[in-house]
């Protein structure tokens, strides 16, 4: 029996989630000229959000594989 618990972050199909710092967040919102809630949302109760410790109000950067662009970046606004 394997003792080590499997974390979903290791799964191939789960893309990389990165929590943005305050400065990064500000810069992103400035660049896109948007309010945070105009981004797509992610639940704070989302398994990945829980694992990386995202709290409502944060923004998560997601880097994933894309059939068209190779690698694509998306952002999610964390909501309760």
């Amino acid at each position, binding site marked *: 029996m394997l003792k080590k618990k499997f974390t979903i972050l290791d799964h191939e199909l789960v893309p990389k989630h990165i929590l943005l710092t305050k400065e990064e967040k500000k810069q992103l919102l400035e660049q*896109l000229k*948007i309010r945070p*809630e*105009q*981004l*797509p949302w992610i639940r704070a109760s989302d398994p990945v959000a829980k694992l990386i410790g995202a709290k409502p109000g944060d923004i998560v950067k997601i880097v994933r594989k*894309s059939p*068209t*662009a*190779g690698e*694509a*970046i*998306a*952002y999610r606004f964390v*909501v*309760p």
Partner: protein
Amino acid sequence: MLIPQKKVKAISFGLLSPDVIRKISVGSIITPDTYEEDGTPIDTGPMSLRLGTIDPTQKCKTCGNRVGQCPGHFGHIELAKPVIHVGFVKIIYQLLQATCCKCGRLLLPQKEIDKIRRLMKERPRIWAIIKSKVVTKVLKKAMKAMECPHCGEKQIKVRLERPTTFYERTKSGERRITPDIVRARLEKIPDEDYEVMGFNPKTSRPEWMVLTVLLVPPVTVRPSITLESGLRSEDDLTHKIVDIIRINERLKEQIDMGAPMAIIEELWDLLQYHVTTYFDNEVSGIPPARHRSGRVLRTLAQRLKGKEGRFRSSLSGKRVDFSARTVISPDPNLSINEVGVPIEIAKILTVPEKVTPWNIDELRELIIRGPYEYPGANYIVRPDGRRIDLRYVKDRKAVAETLTFGYIVERHVRNGDIALFNRQPSLHRMSIMAHKVKVLPYKTFRLNLCVCPPYNADFDGDEMNLHIPQSEEARAEAMTLMLVEQQILSPRYGGPIIGGTQDYILGAYLLSQKNTLLTKEEVQRLLFLADVADFPEPAILKPKRLWTGKQVISALLPKGLNYTLRASACRKCGECKKFECPYDAYVVVANGELVAGVIDKKSIGAGEPESLLHRIIKDFGINVGSWFLDHAFKVFLNYTFLHGFTMNLDDVLLPLEVLQEIQKRLREAEAKVWELIEKYKRGELEQMPGKTLEETLETLIHEVLSNARDNVGKMAANYLKASSQALMMARSGSRGSMLNLTQMAATVGQQTVRGERILRGYFERALPHFKKGDLGAAARGFVYSSFKRGLTPIEFFFHAMGGREGLVDTAVRTSQSGYMQRRLINALQDLHVEYDGTVRTADNRIVQLNYGEDGVDPSKSDHGKAVNIDKTIEKVLGVAALK
């Protein structure tokens, strides 16, 4: 004319309270009859003159206006007992479940209510966003409570019996909650709790969902019609209102008389039924209200709902002027940017033209010619907005003299005007394109054959619509964005969606054959069609000056074009012999010269990405591309005429020995099938993973039989006459496939229904001609015969079964995909790409940071990729790479 403009700032929806209804109303309606015997409307009836008038001889009693002016006025009915509004039963049910039956409070602890209220007051913007989610949670939680946290009352479960009856489950059994009790309970809900459940108590108190007063719409909403016989026929809504009044009055009487509860309840239920069907006559659980003739009544909800309802038909369904519709027919001599418009239509459709010093003389002439002579005019619009209809002008010459600058003349459409051309179903962008008008005799719209694929048009009776843009902006937009040549490249995959079909491909194929030699006259005729002046040097001088077909094609290709591709005629042999290809399928264009290869579907076909046509458009631009489609294609088509082409029965004739060999091979396959069946019966068959033994057998049999047909087909293709015209069509891709040829010449093969060999009709067999449980090829729908030889009756029947399935499938698929398309488009219609490249919704929420994640426009891409490296290298190295 100055129109005062106001801007809508907000729209709010709410319920009408009984007080508001009484205020709106001009009077109570109490008489269940419409007219007196002398034909005058009863003043207290549903057709009362106080509610407005639809009779041109009468004046409205409320506002004194006549038909056009009087907007109509509402009346009301005081209901003897309250009735539940069907549209709100679901909400009422939720409210009853979520609130205390005794004190009316929301069944949540005060703390939680306060928390939500605080959020609501202090963070209104966030509340607006999360409101719907919070509310569903609140209701869900409150409905679960067994006991009131405020007064401690034990909660009794409420049950809804559709559509409008509520019951309460007490220990002693079920008890009905009548609408007046429902109303009393809703009244008890305090505003504070009501807000937490997501409602606005100012605009919609919950007790207003139980009706005590019913609004009666104005007669203008439900006009009656007088039939030829002089009989009056009332609107469905009026009928329903009469029903409601009749029962209401009866109920009132019974209550006043102190009738027993049973009678009152019976009438009350009847009133509920009538009010329910008055709102919605398609409520499940009750029979729809019917007209005396048995026709189902069309009440309020039915007027709004569905395809024929107010929204989809009256509001979204737009009707337009300056449009025409007729049958289409082909004209290869038109440009792809043109549309042939019959003179008769050109005399009706007009273009407004402002009078200027430069066109005044010309416009005067048009006016003099008038509305009935072709290049004429139908109307003159003066600067003050007055229109002069030239049909009723006696002296048009005099009118023409009065013409000065600033007038607008609505002249007939003429050559070169821009028009939008459309064929339904408008499934993609290319279903509506701009064409230049070409006025022609006869009565059909004409279009170039190359634009058939984007419209998906053929000429078996198809009709199309034509619209004439009326403003300069609209024309400019149509011209620059929607003109056919702007739409050649499909935004779906980047290939040319406009291109050759059928005869064009065949003509190009015949012309580019190695053995095509043309005389001077023939070359002249062909190149003249394309307006090409550069006459090539002949390839052969003696005994006669002769030109090859490839030379003619070369003369049409733009200089500097370099290209290679594998033609449709390519047999996909293991190793490509390139220039030595025995089928001449290796196409090479070097500096605009067709060096080798045949031009066929892969080169000039519609919807072929990476084709010769695609390359021309990408390398030389849209103008050269549309020149090629207009001129070169005319040459291809005319070569078909020059060459002559027909198909006959001999095209699919095989030598006797070959036919015998085919039959032998089919028998062998059949034997193999029997072998498999024997193996299966002995239990020796090895089961395939994920399949039952029977499925394994079916798969193996399928494989054997389809291999047999493929082998036989290949053999047939090899032994068909080289001159077979049918074969030529299949090779070039102009029409028909090798499979079609196989089915005609060799064997039709296995027929399937639902992807399986045929087994339906009788118990364990398809037809009574076979034994039960016969698994053999013949018994399960294998057709040995070819179409040429003819099918046996049993084979014919199997073939019909398979064919029928195909027809049913297409019918079902079109309706299903049509509905899917409608929903998709409704969902996606206001997504747009901002200038920063992000994809956003109408309210500016971000969907993608970069369109398609790579920001590539598919119509300008190479198969979805921004650059095609192979082609770029080839282009840089040029002809050198080919050698």
